[in-house]
């Protein structure tokens, strides 16, 4: 969706430019180019992932104990290809 948004903004910018709506054109083109560069350079995704993932460890705080319930949420399915 992000890529679509950036692309749409870019198109809006180009159209606005042809209609001589200079302020809208500049803003749209600037946001789309900066958006693309911040993602393609991995600066933005790294920042977002850092915020989401850093607080959590891949290990338990203490060894596993009796009568523990482990919860696994569904994260989508896909067709089992080739089997």
């Amino acid at each position, binding site marked *: 969706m992000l890529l679509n948004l950036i692309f749409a903004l870019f198109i809006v910018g180009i159209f606005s430019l042809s209609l001589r709506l200079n302020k809208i054109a500049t803003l749209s083109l600037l946001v789309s180019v900066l958006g693309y560069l911040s993602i393609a350079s991995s600066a933005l995704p790294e920042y977002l992932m850092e915020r989401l993932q850093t607080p959590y460890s891949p290990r338990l705080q203490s060894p596993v*104990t009796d009568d523990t319930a482990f919860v696994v949420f569904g994260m989508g399915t896909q067709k089992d290809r080739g089997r």
Partner: protein
Amino acid sequence: MEPLAFAYGPLMAAVDMYHQCAQGQLKCTFITAGADIAGNGISEAEVSARALIKAGIPTQAIIREEESLNTWESSRHVGEILHSLKPKRVVLLQSAPMMKRSLLYLEHFGVIAEPMAAAYLTTSHTNMSATGLNFLAAEVGFQEHFDIWRYTLYNYLGWNEPKEPPLALGELSQSST
């Protein structure tokens, strides 16, 4: 059907936990959640359960919650299961980018779970350098932040169902949190 790529991290963590439980002869229960969202005739919970069984976890150690269509509903239904199960400790095995939101939702339904993250998503500490990976991480990152902001806003506006009181766990969990 098989779990989507993102699901394998938490499933592998579940298998690791099962081996530790079996080694210490401890009673552990695994709750898999998710309805048949794609309409394939098999629920996400069942697909996850089959993957766990295939990896050696006995079927009687797995509880399937097959009614929830999203993480919010999963949290509600898993909360109900945990309220009747009354375990001493609850651990959430979740993909690292989705951990914060999942813990928030579970807490809303009275479950204070201990996080154990898996499947970290990174774009810089990898030998797979692709712009597509950057867009995937940005997409996931924005979606997760948006959902957390939406939860906070709905809470503020009173649009979420009322918060449930914390689930009473055993002594072990209370001392470890």
